[in-house]
């Protein structure tokens, strides 16, 4: 049993997804239990595998005992182990949070929701732990198709957002597939480690150049790197609130992880064309950081503002990857972790506010701090972390990014990071002012006080626990950041920890 853990991380949620609609027919309570149990198991296995990779060494799992490069290989090194733990952790919290939203749904809706949700989880976990480029494409499509369907369940406008996301997502996947095709044509292998060994002497070939460009474009589209972010604001705004937190927190980050994995572990970033691609990506990311923040300031809808801020935050991650030195890469990985936790927390809060008040417009949400103290506390921590104030997690990833930029002598990037922090402060302090300081005017009464006692609008416990855990998590990551970096992340970057 224990030796099969790497495979089970992806397979358990997949199996649970297949039986979810059937189970829902018999018991609505059971389907929720099974879903959460499956994700919890995947999370425990991920942590176990991460621990194994840190103490014993990289864990290679051969599917059906077919040794690579012929068979499919799952590889758990500190990088994929920590990503798998992060994905399953956020997935677990959001699954727990989704309960009250689905209370009134029929068994079919409920079963399909959990089925799709588990499919996304399984696809994303598969993407991070696989060691095979084509297998990655299959998992990418599993998670993407389930995401289109689950976004479309958000109502009238969501169907259009989901359809446009489907078109762009398919273009992205086709680019990625073509890119693999070129690399396969010159190296004759699809296994990442095997390709890394063979591709070095072929770097000057134009086919490799085209392949790299296509993979970067494909994953850039999926990760919503700046000029390719068009699908993201609509998809995040109209998706059902209970899943936006998961999609926003984790999906784009997994694509950024793939970008990192392919450019550094397969292609080897020191080489000519990869270095050029990374430099271009760095400048694009810098523009994206500023543009995303400026667009976020212009938004009136709370969720749309968070969506544009995601575009900026993905820019930080890509910027760190493009710097390519130790500090920059650690900054990028730490920011993947931080942003997953912060953005999930913010979207969970946004969903909670919508659930209580039926309102998304920032201007109409006044005086919530007294009514939802714990939710607003978590929101405050997450917002300060997005701005990057010291004890919170957001400060430290930006700090590493700035150090990395100084190390690489990229002064413009330092200015961009500082400028963007100021812009973040503008749009988050506007929200904080509304939620905490502004008095509600007459006639702006809260619309739906669903079952809550009179003056309190605090969320039910099942929704509150994930929000508070994430809020505490942001502080914990901030305080423990040096331990996280020295014990996990420095082993995750190429050539690190030696």
């Amino acid at each position, binding site marked *: 049993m224990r030796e099969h853990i790497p495979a089970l991380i992806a397979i358990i949620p997949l199996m649970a997804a297949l039986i979810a609609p059937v189970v829902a027919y018999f018991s609505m309570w059971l389907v929720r239990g099974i879903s959460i149990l499956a994700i919890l198991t995947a999370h425990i296995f991920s942590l176990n595998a991460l621990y194994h990779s840190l103490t014993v060494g990289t864990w290679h799992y051969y599917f059906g005992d077919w040794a690579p490069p012929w068979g499919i290989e799952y590889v758990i090194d500190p990088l994929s182990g920590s990503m798998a733990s992060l994905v399953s952790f956020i997935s677990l919290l959001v699954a727990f949070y989704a309960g009250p939203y689905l209370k009134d749904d029929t068994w079919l809706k409920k079963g399909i929701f959990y089925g799709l949700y588990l499919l996304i989880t399984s696809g994303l976990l598969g993407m991070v732990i696989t060691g095979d480029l084509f297998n990655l494409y*299959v998992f990418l499509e599993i998670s993407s198709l389930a995401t289109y369907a689950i976004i*479309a369940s958000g109502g009238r406008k969501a169907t*259009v957002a989901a359809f446009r996301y*489907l078109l762009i997502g*398919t273009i992205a996947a086709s680019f990625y597939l073509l890119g693999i*095709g070129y690399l396969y044509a010159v190296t004759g292998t699809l296994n990442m480690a095997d390709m890394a060994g063979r591709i070095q002497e072929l770097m000057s070939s134009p086919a490799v150049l085209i392949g790299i460009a296509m993979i970067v474009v494909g994953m850039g589209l999926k990760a919503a790197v700046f000029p390719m972010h068009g699908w993201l604001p609509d998809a995040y705004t109209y998706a059902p609130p209970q899943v936006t937190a998961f999609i926003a927190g984790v999906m784009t980050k997994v694509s950024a992880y793939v970008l990192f994995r392919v450019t550094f572990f397969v292609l080897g970033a020191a080489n000519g064309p990869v270095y050029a691609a990374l430099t271009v990506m760095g400048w694009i990311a810098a523009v994206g950081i500023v543009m995303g923040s400026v667009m976020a300031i212009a938004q009136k809808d709370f969720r749309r503002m968070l969506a544009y801020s995601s575009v900026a935050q993905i820019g930080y991650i890509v910027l760190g990857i493009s710097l390519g030195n130790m500090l920059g890469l650690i900054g990028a990985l730490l920011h993947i972790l931080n942003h997953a936790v912060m953005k999930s927390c913010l979207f969970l809060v946004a969903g909670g506010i919508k659930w209580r008040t039926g309102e998304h417009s920032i201007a109409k949400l006044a005086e919530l701090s007294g009514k939802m103290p714990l939710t607003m506390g978590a929101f405050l921590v997450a917002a300060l972390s997005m701005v990057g104030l010291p004890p919170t997690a957001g400060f430290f990833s930006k700090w590493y990014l700035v150090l990395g930029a100084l190390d690489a002598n990229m002064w413009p990037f330092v200015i961009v990071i500082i400028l963007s922090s100021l812009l973040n402060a503008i749009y988050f302090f506007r929200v904080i002012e509304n939620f905490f300081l502004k008095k509600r005017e007459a006639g702006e009464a809260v619309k739906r006080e669903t079952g809550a006692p009179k003056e309190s609008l605090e969320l039910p416990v099942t929704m509150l626990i994930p929000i508070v855990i994430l809020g505490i998590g942001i502080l914990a990551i901030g305080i423990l950041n040096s331990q996280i970096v020295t014990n996990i992340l420095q082993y995750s970057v190429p050539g690190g920890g030696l």
Partner: protein
Amino acid sequence: MMENLMSGYLIYWLIGVLFVIGIHGIIQKNNFIKKIMAMNIMQVAVIIFFLVLGQKTGATLPILIHGVEGAENYINPLPHALMLTAIVVSLSTTGVALALLLRIQKHFDELEEPDVLRGMDQ
């Protein structure tokens, strides 16, 4: 002469043209059904690209035949196997897209993009 040209570079250029036609259609056409058709053209271009990669002149099926030794006498089956998966993915993407279009048609009574976007603003 013609055969060499075809199997050399021309076929890849044709595939490239097909791929670009697909992307152009997705971006340029207003009708959602036409967008799906363009998406299928793009996916078919990728599939043909892989199949051409597996092609080898003078080689036979990848089944061991007595008397025929050596890898150069058999075509590479892997691209074909990969494309079976890609075809399934393409099929299910089309299925999900059509299901979404049914919902859009129900909500907006329209499948032309500008009209639907106008409907979203209301």
